[in-house]
């Protein structure tokens, strides 16, 4: 029987000829990882079991301290220390210390530790990001991560797949972020619950890998288990000289079974805004703003969804020879040290600093209201991140609008939620 990409990858990793939606499978992932928070909780109180069992395969495990690092307070420093000691004691194969790190979902594909055809499981919900490579990639909690650490195995139900057909090509100032915001708005927060999203159509080719990572990253906001792009020449080119293992490319069978089909016309898509306080509360920009003056206290550009070099180039293109509005703070956080260095070498960091922005070390801090950009009560933020739940970036009474990079950068200059078209040339 015909299979989707997700079914093919899970079948291969379960040692079966074929599997189909609804079946339970036990798989051995090619790669697993956790950040300092998920890992810290995973190993809490389980030292004895860990000592007895050890780690199933240290070469397939990464630990990335990225959420509250550089440590935001003593409690976080103690947790980072505990996690670091665990990494050393059990010889975890891949550890990215402050100064050599990146946000987990930016650094793992950048370093080629995850590749096409993999099953990848991370102790973080945005682990669905790597589906962009044509992999099965999903997030779990800390106990599942611990079970994976000691056993190398985890059970899953094979998800049904929603086929998402992308047609045409995005217009100027419309980004991959707008595609996924639109999709999440269309599906709703549980529209893809327990399901896979699989992308098709001529529009796929027009979206570079950076944009595919952005799109897959936010699949969880529609409740999806995973999201997957078919591998093409762009995928192959991206992994060349980067992949640490041999990628395996899968494509869906022509007569694979889908539970639903959604078409998105990229050509006519307009910039989208996710309004407070739910990621799926998405409206076209024009409708969300509707001519209102919505002053912005803070703009954040970065995170695992929009912290790649392409995003920073886009922001710099708008901020060059312009300055941030006097009543607004702009925080730019490169997704990894490699992205940061490249931004320095390309002169992007000079543009940000001259514009009056702060450029920070890679961290998840601002996105989760942890540190490096926490909001006060009554403040409004335009953010290129993926969640705007109440209190997500700080005070219970702060509000967050999610957008693509062009809207964020234009809003920083104009001091209100704005489109790049509104800027003086």
């Amino acid at each position, binding site marked *: 029987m015909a299979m989707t990409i997700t079914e093919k990858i899970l079948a291969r990793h379960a040692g079966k000829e074929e599997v189909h939606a609804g079946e339970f499978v036990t798989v051995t992932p090619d790669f697993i990882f956790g950040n300092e928070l*998920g890992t810290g909780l995973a190993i809490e109180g389980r030292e004895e079991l860990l000592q007895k069992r050890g780690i199933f395969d240290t070469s397939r495990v990464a630990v990335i301290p990225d959420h509250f690092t550089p440590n935001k*307070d003593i409690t976080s420093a103690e*947790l980072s220390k505990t996690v670091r000691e665990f990494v050393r004691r059990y010889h975890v194969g891949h550890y990215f210390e402050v100064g050599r790190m990146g946000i987990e979902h930016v650094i793992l594909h950048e370093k080629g530790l995850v590749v096409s055809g993999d099953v990848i499981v991370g102790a*973080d919900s945005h682990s669905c990001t790597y589906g962009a490579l044509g992999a099965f990639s999903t997030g779990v909690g*800390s106990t599942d991560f611990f079970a994976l650490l000691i056993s190398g195995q985890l059970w899953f139900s094979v998800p049904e797949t929603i086929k998402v057909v992308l047609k045409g090509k995005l217009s100027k100032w419309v980004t991959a972020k707008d595609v996924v915001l639109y999709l999440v708005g269309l599906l709703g*927060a549980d529209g893809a619950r327990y399901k896979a999203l699989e992308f098709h159509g001529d529009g796929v080719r027009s979206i570079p890998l950076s944009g595919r990572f952005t799109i897959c990253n936010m699949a969880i906001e529609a409740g999806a288990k995973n999201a997957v792009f078919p591998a093409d020449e762009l995928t192959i080119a991206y992994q060349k000289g980067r992949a640490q293992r041999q990628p395996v490319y899968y494509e869906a069978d022509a007569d694979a079974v889908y539970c639903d089909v959604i078409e998105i016309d990229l050509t006519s898509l307009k910039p989208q805004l996710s309004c407070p306080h739910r990621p799926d509360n998405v409206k076209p920009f024009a409708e969300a703003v509707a001519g209102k003056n919505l002053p912005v206290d803070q703009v954040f550009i970065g995170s695992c969804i929009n912290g790649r070099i392409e995003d920073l180039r886009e922001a710099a293109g708008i901020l060059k020879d312009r300055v941030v509005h006097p009543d607004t703070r702009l925080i730019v956080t490169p997704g990894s040290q490699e992205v940061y260095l490249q931004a320095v070498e390309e002169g992007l960091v000079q543009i940000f600093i001259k514009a009056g922005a702060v450029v920070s070390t890679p961290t998840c801090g601002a996105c989760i*209201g942890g540190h490096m950009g926490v909001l006060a009560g009554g403040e409004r933020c335009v953010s290129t991140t993926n969640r705007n739940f109440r209190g997500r970036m700080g005070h219970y009474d702060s509000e967050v609008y999610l957008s693509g990079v062009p809207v964020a950068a234009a809003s920083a200059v104009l001091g209100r939620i704005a489109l790049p078209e509104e800027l003086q040339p």
Partner: protein
Amino acid sequence: MSELVFTGTVRRLGDFVDTDAILPAKYLNLTTPEALAAHVLENHAPDFRKILHAGDILVAGRNFGCGSSREHAPLALKGSGVACVIAESFARIFFRNSINLGLPVVELADAGQLAEGHTVRVDCGAGLVSDETSGKTYKVALFPDFMREILKAGGVIPYIENQR
């Protein structure tokens, strides 16, 4: 506990309660149930923990526990002594995390019928939820055997340890 039967007072929540609402990210550097319980549901309603008592049954609407995979969220509920969570539906990762921690999570399409303050009896073995205040009883799906055993053991790690 081992029979998976709970009687408690209903504490109502709405649709789409996310894990940031259950346990704000700023507390993710805490790792014990007691420490996390001090902040439970703080981003849902800052004073919610004051009306939440050990043995209470949380009743929610659609997609409870959506968003972040933080297991700190169900652990905070467990640390607060929540006996069981009933919802119209659960987000995937939250459901898995709860079972793994031994926190019973019961899907009931009619969850909206269970009103704040009602006394409810949940019998996971029989697959029944009884609203003792209204006198109505609802059928719920039985847990697969392995999940019931995990819940009885108090989570998947004790379950694995008991097996050896």
